[in-house]
């Protein structure tokens, strides 16, 4: 059965995409969580969803757009949504988390309206919602790979700025770091990652993969770098185990991946408790 993953092209794409998501989602997730923005992924994923619906609608109505992957509209909407969140966060300085429900509701509202305008889609919308292992195309994989290169490149070149801004915005500002640029760029990366990951884990579950492995890693990490590394390890285990189980049992891939991540989190919490008790 394991050999299927190599023999069937679509499974190979799924596997590669899964590995890439398991790498970049927890990296961005670690920064999001320490900045208390863990809901951000939720907000943006709903905006992405409306973008995908828009892409499907436009390709249904206008023949020219039928060749454009709706994913790119998802990315576009997601990036616009992220810029909007940054803007709202500035307007409501004292209620910064207000930006997220606003953007989430907007995304979902737009999505339902677009779906009703289109009078249903023949493409499988369900796979965008919950993820599917059979719908990943080569184009999807390339888009994800592109996003991953940008995320990893940013981490290589701007890690210290991202750390400084996440740890203490005021100090970073006083050090001459352009906080606004860093924040904006980071949000764009989160938006792109969410959009590019949706085919495999699904829009509704991508935020889980961004946050749950990090939640587990924060329990045991002894440094910020370690927190990122453990989060990646947990995410990769979740993705690989989840994909395999989903294929074998014919379960929804996104849901299976998230459940494995939750089990890892519970094991880490339980293990920690056990260690404290044995001491």
């Amino acid at each position, binding site marked *: 059965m394991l050999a299927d993953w190599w023999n069937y092209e679509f499974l190979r794409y799924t596997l590669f995409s899964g590995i890439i998501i398991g790498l970049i989602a927890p990296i961005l997730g670690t920064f999001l969580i*320490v900045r208390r923005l863990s809901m951000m992924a939720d907000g943006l994923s709903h905006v992405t969803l409306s973008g995908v619906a828009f892409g499907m609608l436009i390709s249904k109505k206008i023949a020219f757009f039928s060749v454009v992957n709706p994913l790119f509209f998802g990315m576009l909407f997601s990036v616009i949504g992220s810029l909007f969140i940054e803007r709202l966060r500035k307007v409501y300085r004292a209620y910064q988390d207000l930006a997220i429900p606003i953007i989430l509701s907007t995304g979902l509202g737009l999505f339902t309206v677009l779906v009703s305008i289109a009078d249903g889609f023949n493409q499988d919308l369900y796979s965008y919602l919950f993820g599917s292992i059979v719908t990943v195309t080569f184009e999807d994989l390339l888009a994800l790979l592109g996003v991953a290169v940008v995320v990893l490149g940013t981490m*290589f*070149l*701007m*890690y*210290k*700025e991202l*750390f*400084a801004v996440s*740890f*203490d915005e*005021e*100090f*970073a*500002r*006083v*050090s*001459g*770091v352009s906080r606004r640029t860093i924040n904006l760029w980071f949000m764009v990366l989160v938006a792109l990652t969410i959009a590019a990951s949706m085919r495999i884990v699904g829009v509704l579950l991508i935020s889980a993969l961004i946050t749950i492995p990090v939640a587990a890693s*924060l329990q045991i*990490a*002894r*440094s*910020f*770098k*370690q*927190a990122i590394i453990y989060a990646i390890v947990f995410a990769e285990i979740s993705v690989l185990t989840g994909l395999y189980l989903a294929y074998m049992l014919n379960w929804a891939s996104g849901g299976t991946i998230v459940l494995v991540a939750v089990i890892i989190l519970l094991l880490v919490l339980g293990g920690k408790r056990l260690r404290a008790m044995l001491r």
Partner: protein
Amino acid sequence: MQKDIQQSSVISLDHVFFRYEDGKKVLEDITFHLNKGDFMGIVGPNGSGKSTLMKLILGLNVPSKGEINLFGQPLQKFKEWNKIGYVAQQAAHGASGFPATVREVVSSGLVGKVGMFRRLTAEHRQQVADVIERVGLSAKINERISNLSGGQLQRVFIARALVSEPELLILDEPTVGVDQESIQQFYELLRSLKDETGMTMVIVSHDVSVMMEWVNKVACLQRRLHFHGTTEEYEHNQEEIFRSMYGDSVRLLTHNH
């Protein structure tokens, strides 16, 4: 002549006013100069505008009126932020749960100096280790900051401010929540730094009696500057200053430690 004075002064404020958008006046007509090597203590009751004044100097707030110069340059044009080290009021407060080590936090103090898109070199890492040793936390260098005491955490933030080798150090209530013994060590550290590097320092503290033993200049703030001068001048005119700040109804209570 005027130019010479400007250049030797590290901080100079010229009739600076600050008010919030709703019109509430926070600072009025603040004028003072600070020369290289000075150690100035800023005192004043809660809400007297001390932190706001620090934020003005750091460019975090913009004055409604007046001019601020840093190292002889107008604040608006000032770019050499790595010349300034800053320890914020309760910097330790929100950060204590953050999953970072002493080394990681102190390294982040180099972010402005190293510059965008560059990575820390071996030399930078040595500087980080040296400054951590300087504040006496070498044994804790790889410890998560959540495992440190209040006094230790405060030293981490001082190390972060010092690692870029600033010429001006600004400390806003750095001793809040720190035990007496650590406060003593803290001031001793500042003094030895000052002796070695000739660093200029500004400290905001409500614990006036302890601070007075270490600073050479004092500024008394209560929306306006009610006094600024040397420590000796302050001690001579203490009663008068207090009357000016709090009104006649308040008697000066002296207490001996």
